[in-house]
């Protein structure tokens, strides 16, 4: 699971994240919903141990992100909108490289690739260099990298951003398939329908603060709005107040 407690992050005078707290439980897809620049990516980067919080605490799969960052990374799978693939390596070489960095034995890597590649349709272009692939194909390879070591916790940062309709649809379908498994999933997005369709609970983040937290129905009920988009707009325009 993920537990974030009173998280703060400053960059000089700029407060990117302020007093953010939430929990994501195993088997749950939790959405961090907010406009661009709200602090979603900074929060996810702190959970992924890429950034150090100015204040606050994070535990991932029982490990403290500040004390045991290597252990946290070992139990994490991360997918961001920048696919982060090496263009001159093939899709398969990319997957194998990151799996080896996670100390997966070669036979285990082959076994997992045989399972995951057909599910994501990577087989067809596994031997092609990543630089020649479309954004949608690259995102599927990046997804394979995030999943190959079967991590208990998954972070998805705007996973469908910049994808064509079909690719976005297949990534969403894959995420939907994670619901009900024992995975702890944290999804950051600015797309309301995506959040509504995929997330069990949502935290709306605005100007670095979580301004609302609950299931989609709870948020609608709380605000008296019928659509999540209306709830979101009301919160953003009201400066976090409904």
């Amino acid at each position, binding site marked *: 699971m993920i537990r974030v407690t009173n998280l703060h992050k400053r960059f000089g005078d700029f407060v990117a994240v302020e007093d953010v707290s939430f929990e994501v439980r195993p088997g749950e897809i939790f959405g961090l919903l907010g406009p661009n620049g709200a602090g979603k990516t900074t929060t996810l980067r702190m959970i992924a141990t890429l950034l*150090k919080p100015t204040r606050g605490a994070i535990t991932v799969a029982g490990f403290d992100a500040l004390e045991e960052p290597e252990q946290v990374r070992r139990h994490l799978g991360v997918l961001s909108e920048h696919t982060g693939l090496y263009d001159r390596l093939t899709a398969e070489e990319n997957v194998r490289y990151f799996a080896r*960095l996670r100390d997966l034995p070669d036979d285990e890597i082959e076994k997992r690739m045989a399972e995951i590649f057909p599910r994501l349709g990577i087989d067809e272009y596994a031997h092609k260099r990543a630089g020649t692939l479309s954004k949608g194909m690259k995102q599927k390879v990046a997804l394979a990298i995030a999943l190959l070591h079967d991590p208990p916790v998954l972070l998805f940062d705007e996973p469908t951003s910049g994808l064509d309709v079909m690719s976005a649809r297949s990534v969403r379908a894959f995420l939907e398939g994670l619901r009900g498994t024992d995975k702890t999933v944290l999804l950051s997005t600015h797309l309301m329908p995506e959040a509504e369709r995929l997330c069990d609970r949502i935290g709306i983040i605005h100007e670095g603060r979580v301004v609302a937290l609950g299931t989609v129905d709870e948020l609608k009920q709380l605000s008296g709005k019928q659509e999540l988009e209306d709830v979101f707009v009301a919160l953003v325009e009201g400066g976090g107040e409904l």
Partner: protein
Amino acid sequence: MRRSWRHVALVWQKELLDTIRDRRTLTLMIVVPLVLTPVLVLGPNVLRQSQEEKQLQQLQTVAVVNGQEAPELLALLRESGLLRIRSVPDSDAKRAREELEEGEIDAVVEVPEGFAERIAREAEPPEVVIRFDVSRSQSRTAREKLAQLLRAYRERVVAERLKQRGLSPQLLQPFTTRSEVVQAEERVSGFLLSMLLPLFLVLWAAVGGSQTAIDVTAGEKERGTLESLLVAPPKRSRLVVGKFLTITTVTLGATTLSLLGFALSLTLGRGLFPESSIFSQFGFAIRPQVLLLLFGVTALLAALMSALTFTLYLWTRNFKEAQTYASYLSFAVMFPAFLVSFTDPPTTLPAMLLPVYNVAVVIKELLLGDIRWDHIGATLLSSGAYLALSLALAVKVFQDERVLFRQ
């Protein structure tokens, strides 16, 4: 293999594979040293030689003004077969000069009035003037040929005068001279190499791996792959060492290839231009011990520069900015390398602690067959210490989120 070294090896292997597949790096590593160096070294010589040969074989046209005043000289010029001689009267002197200026003829020889008679009388030496156009190579060649033929004529006149007096021509040459070098063959052959190679090796050690250094740092930041790497479990220090070893490997590979290109150029040069003093003065009489020491100091410099460039380029925002810093860096290392190559550099202890400079001095000394263990020791120890500090700094910078996510 321990896990930490397995991670280092993984990063190293992956980065090398990535580098080998990068056309820009391959071009810089292979095409430049193995193709461009021989072309640059041999090209001008091939051109010059073919031009010189052509000019020597060609007959330049020379107008001899007042040639009738020096029949013996005129005959000698004509019989030499080196020039096309046209004798013109004094009244045509102005026209001959105009023809020279217009490039219709290649030189004008002006013989003063009463030349032969004044020589016969042994009167005050008459002055022969050679007019030529310094901007035209044909004209310069004509002047060289004329100077040579006039010298031969003067020697003939002197010999005749001495003979008439019953004196030997050796009267004018009381002794001869001969110079012999006292140094070992290695030192002689290493002299020209000692001027060029420190510059060559230091520059390649500094810039040979720059493309890779930029690619694994600023390039990764720009492409967004660094973030993927940083969410992998290995400690940052292992990633740094893996990347550092990649840059060092590529730098050493590029330096070796550039040396091969240089050696190839000289070997080809000696074969193509056996008469050329430039190529014959370069030698390769280097003992294995010296070669080993040369490799050692160059490798250490390559490692030091790799660690420094890694840190510097990681700090930059993108590929373009890193390339700008790379050009500044090449200028910065060029200065000490030039100083050592073309002067007698100071070798005091403080001087021998200066990075880059000390390596260039040791390379120069080794090429001259001069193994100075105090200099080698100071260089190895100080460069080793700088390397350790640079690596520690690289790890620190690689952990600094302000640097990694600098926009």
